[in-house]
Structures are given as C-alpha cells and as structure tokens.
C-alpha cells in the first residue's frame, strides 16, 4: 500500500510565509522570521538610512534585494524635498543599489510591477502601506514601518505573524461602467475599514479570472483600506505572460540577478513561463478561512467613498450633483493605461467645465508613453486637462494639486482622510476613473453615461 501524506491544507499566506521563512509549513498565529525577496522604500529612504546608520554597519546586508523609487514628492516641490532626494541618491551610490528609479519613472508599485522585480510566490515588504498591491501577481506584499526596513537592510530578516485568511469571491463579469474600483469600494463599504484587519484576503471567482491585469491591480491595492496584511489574486496565463515579456526585456539588457529560478544558459520566453509557473503558490482547496464573502458582479454598480473615510461608501446616484472644484485621475490605484482610456472615452470631444480643474497623472513613464502613442494624452489636453509628472501627485498632500480650504476633489486615489491631500478643510470623494473624468466635464459628480449620452 502506498502511504498518502495528509498534511493539513494551507492558505496562500501560510505557503508564502513558510517559503520566505525557509520552513516546510507554518500555522496561523505563528511568528516567523522571514527573508523577503524584495524590500521597497521610496522618498522615505533618507529617513530609513538615518535609522539604519544607528546599527553602525558600513554596507547594507542585502543590496540586491533593495528597490527604491523617487515618487512621493517628485520632482521635489521645495529645497527640503530636494535635499531629501539628494541624500537618497548618495545612499544608492554608496551602497551600489541597482534597483533605483529616478524622479519621473513612476509610482513604486507600478514601476516594480513593470520591471517584474517581484514574481509569483515571492515576498515583498515595503515602507508603504499599499505594498499589498503585489498580490495582483500572486506575490505576498505587506507594508511595514521605516525602522523595520532599516532592520531588513541590516539583517535581511523580519518577523511576521501568520494571518488568518478570508476569501472574497466575484461571480460573473462586471457590467459595463462598473470597475474593480467599484468592487473594492463596495467590499470596504459593506464590511468597514477594519473588515479585513490583520487578515490575508484571497480573491477568486469567474469575475476575477475574467478581469484584465490592470483591473486586478486595483484590488489588492485597495485592500490596504480594508486593514489587511496582504491580499492575493491567483496568477494565471495572463499574469505569467505579462511578467515573462518584461523579464525577457530585462535579461536582454543584462539584468539577471533578481530571478531566483534561473538556470544556466539563456532564458527563452518558454523557459521563463515555466519558471514563473513553478514559482506560483496557490491555496489548497480545503484550507481554513475565517470568512467567505460572495459577490455577484451583475448586482454591483458605481460607488463613491465620501469624506472623510474610505468605508463611507454610497452608490454614485446618492451624491450626484455635488459640486467639484478639482478632478484627479492617477495614483497606484487608478493611474494606468486602462484608467486613462476610460477617461478619454468620456472626455474626447468635450471640455472640462469652467471653474473645475482636471489633473491627470500617469502612474509611470511607461503609462505616459503608451498614452502618448495612443493619442490619449492629446485628447485629454485638448479637453483642458493638465498632465502631471508620473508619480504620486497630490495623493498625500505633498504637491501638484493641493486643494484650497472648502474645495471639493473627486479622485481616483485610495484615501480620502481629512487632510490627506494637504488641506484639512477640503473634501475628497473617491470614484472610478470614468466617473472622475465625467465629473470634470460636468463640474459636479455625475454618472458618465449622462455625459456621454447627454
């Protein structure tokens, strides 16, 4: 008789943390010392360096695993911000950090995705709360603090608690005009800003499988507003194809170091796909979940998160007519090509309303370039939009579109906390990209269908 091994089934989070911890398996609640594949920081790198210097080390322990972008206040709006960037460049030179991305390359989560620096089944820890983003490609991404990044630079290791997991299933394809952003807002509105606190959220269902990759990126990104530790979308052929193409480009320019699975000899697209599939992790069918929430795509509609909390969610119709001073399309949540395309579809041949500003900031230089090639940027500028440098823009109130007291902004970003965009007495409404563009045209919050058909 053959013996069948019957080790208890595991969630994605268990498998990913076990792998990063060099263990066969881990249990929920266990504290594990992990060695993440990538450690992310951005404009906060200079502050992290000052913490790291307290360790008295001459060289960081893991230069090849460090990735740094300048994106949060880029280009620098003040001399102090400029000095901050200068300190970061000095650190990058002194430590030989190769994965460094300058002002204008784009937002960390978008850039590291485009560069295929994080692969399925890998772990990325970052001094940025939206590091959950990397769940879109089947990686384990979690935000940590600055001291923790300094500790990782020094030792390569950090403790994580293995989280409970929760499943969110989307059945059926989203109807026209309803996006992944609306789905995320609906989840957060239903279950609260702490509805996923400390948990690993696993997405699944036919609606997720049918989604394009850019839409999938929205979901784990927005789950930061749900309190999660990480979120996960199962990788599939679309995911492997995206990453393989980008890895092949990187290898062509001689960068081979990040691929842990690489073998001797040249990588071919076929071998890359096989390598990526071999890296991917999937939850076992009978793994344990603390909750499962099932949504039917056909029952969803466009939603708005009203000031000053991301779980203050209402259907679009409930706030239609609200005056808008500024519309902002961009960020790691909704600043990609499909978001810009959705805005162009609404605004082409129309004009931004008098008295309203429409600010569009592509999430990366590649998004900007693709938008130029397709004529999207031209259409936006002709309609009266202002195009900003790829990066985070005014999302967290540093620069490039800070509202005046009393003003109303409709934004495709992920947060609408009081003061988030730099002004405590300003209101921020969160919406999907088409609603943002339509509101720019109408000068008030409006259903895009009203603008396009009206």
């Amino acid at each position, binding site marked *: 008789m053959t013996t069948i091994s019957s080790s208890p089934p595991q969630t994605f989070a268990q498998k990913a943390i076990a792998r990063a911890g060099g263990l066969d398996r881990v249990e929920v609640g266990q*504290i594990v010392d992990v060695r993440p594949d990538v450690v992310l920081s951005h*404009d*906060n790198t*200079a*502050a992290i360096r000052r*913490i790291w210097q*307290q*360790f*008295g*080390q*001459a*060289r960081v*322990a893991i230069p090849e695993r460090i990735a740094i972008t300048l994106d*949060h*206040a880029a280009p620098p709006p*003040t001399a*102090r*911000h400029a000095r*901050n960037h200068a300190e970061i460049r000095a650190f990058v030179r002194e430590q030989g950090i190769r994965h460094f991305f300058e002002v204008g390359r784009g937002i960390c989560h978008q850039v590291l995705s485009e560069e295929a620096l994080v692969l399925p089944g890998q772990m990325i820890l*970052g*001094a*940025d*709360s939206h*590091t959950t983003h990397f769940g879109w490609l089947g990686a384990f991404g979690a*935000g*940590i*603090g*600055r*001291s*923790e990044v*300094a*500790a990782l630079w*020094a*030792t390569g290791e950090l*403790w994580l608690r293995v989280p409970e997991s929760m499943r969110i299933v989307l059945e059926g394809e989203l109807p026209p005009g309803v996006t992944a952003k609306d789905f995320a807002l609906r989840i957060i509105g239903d279950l609260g*800003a*702490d509805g996923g*606190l*400390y948990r690993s959220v696993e997405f699944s269902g036919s609606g997720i499988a049918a989604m394009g990759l850019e839409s999938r990126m929205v979901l784990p990104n927005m789950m930061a*507003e749900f*309190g999660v*530790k990480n979120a996960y979308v199962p990788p599939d052929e679309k995911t492997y194809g995206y990453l393989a193409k980008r890895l092949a480009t990187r290898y062509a320019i001689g960068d081979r170091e990040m691929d842990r699975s690489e073998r001797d000899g040249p990588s071919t697209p076929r071998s890359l796909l096989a390598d990526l599939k071999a890296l991917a992790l999937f939850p076992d069918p009978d793994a344990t979940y603390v909750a499962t929430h099932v949504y039917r795509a056909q029952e969803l509609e466009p939603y708005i998160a009203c000031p000053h*909390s991301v*779980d203050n969610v209402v259907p679009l119709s409930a706030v239609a007519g609200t005056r808008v001073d500024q519309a902002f399309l961009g960020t790691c949540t909704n600043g990609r090509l499909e978001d810009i395309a959705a805005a162009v579809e609404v605004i082409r041949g129309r004009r931004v309303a008098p008295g309203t500003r429409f600010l569009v900031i592509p999430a990366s230089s590649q998004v900007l370039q693709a938008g130029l090639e397709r004529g999207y940027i031209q259409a936006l500028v002709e309609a009266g939009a202002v195009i900003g440098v790829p990066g985070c823009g005014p999302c*967290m*109130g*540093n620069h490039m579109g*800070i509202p005046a007291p009393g003003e109303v902004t409709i934004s495709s970003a992920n*947060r609408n*906390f*009081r*003061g*988030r965009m*730099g002004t*405590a007495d300003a209101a921020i409404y969160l919406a999907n990209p088409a609603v943002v563009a339509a509101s720019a045209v109408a000068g008030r919050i409006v259903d895009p269908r009203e603008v396009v058909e009206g």
Partner: protein
Amino acid sequence: MPTLTGRAWKYGHNVNTDVLFPGKYTYTARGREEIARHALEDLDPRFVQEVQPGDVIVAGRNFGCGSSREQAATCLVYNGVSAVIAESFGRIFYRNAINNGLLAIPCPPAAQAIQPGETVTVDLEHHLIRCAAGEFPFPPLSDTLRGIVEAGGLVAYIRGKVRSNE
C-alpha cells in the same frame, strides 16, 4: 515592567495616520521637536498644546489605519505619550508603536469605558488597566514584542544581531 499613569485623551473609530501626522510633512520633518509639533494636527489642535508626559491616548476601532508612516507613532512618543489603548489597531501602526517602545494595548472594554481627561493607570505586571469604571485585563505581549518594548524599540532590540561589515 513599570506601572504607567496619565490623563486620557479620547478619540473615536478609524483615527487614521493622516490626522495623526499629515503626509505633507512626512519626507521633510526631522528631529523630535519638529515631528512632535505636528502630532494630531488635523484631529485635535489642543493636543500638542496641553499634552503632558505620561498621558494616554484612548480610541475606538482601527486606531492608526492608513499609511505606513512611522511618525504617526513617533510623534506620540516625542510628546511623552506612554500608551495607546484602543478597541483595535491598524496593523502597521501597531508594529510602528511597538518598534518605537510605545505600548499599543488592544482592550475594547477599557477603550469604551475610559472618559476624556480621567486618570488611567496601566499595570504592566498584572496586565490591568485601571480607570474610574473599574479594572480591565488585557492580553500580555508575546516574549518577542515585550523584548522590543523593554529594549526601547526595534533598533535597540536587534542592534546586537547586526554584524558590522566594515
């Protein structure tokens, strides 16, 4: 571990990192004084004017949700806050607090019972919060986290593990 006593500053649910420490300062503010000055700026301007060393912050669910910015915790430390008692914490804030030696104590009944301005005592030996409404037990920290808090933060805690590599 000692006993902490201080006045309570009480706030609601989902107190986020932007109202604890606005993002517009996060890449430029340096040093204890400058970081301390902006604490709770968009939530309670009275706080930095009247806070006393040892004071305790008491709040509802999901305290510190939002950004990973560590100043959301250090701005409280630099104002002398000795502990935060809440119904629950945003996970990165919780890590940042512990990693800077700031006690973050999840204790829903105490967080609900404590009234603004009253004197609160945290007994770390017996894991009890004492206030006008009575005594409330809270779960002890794991050995690792207790070690970090007692060392005064993560940097001090792991300094011994770091290899110098001149």
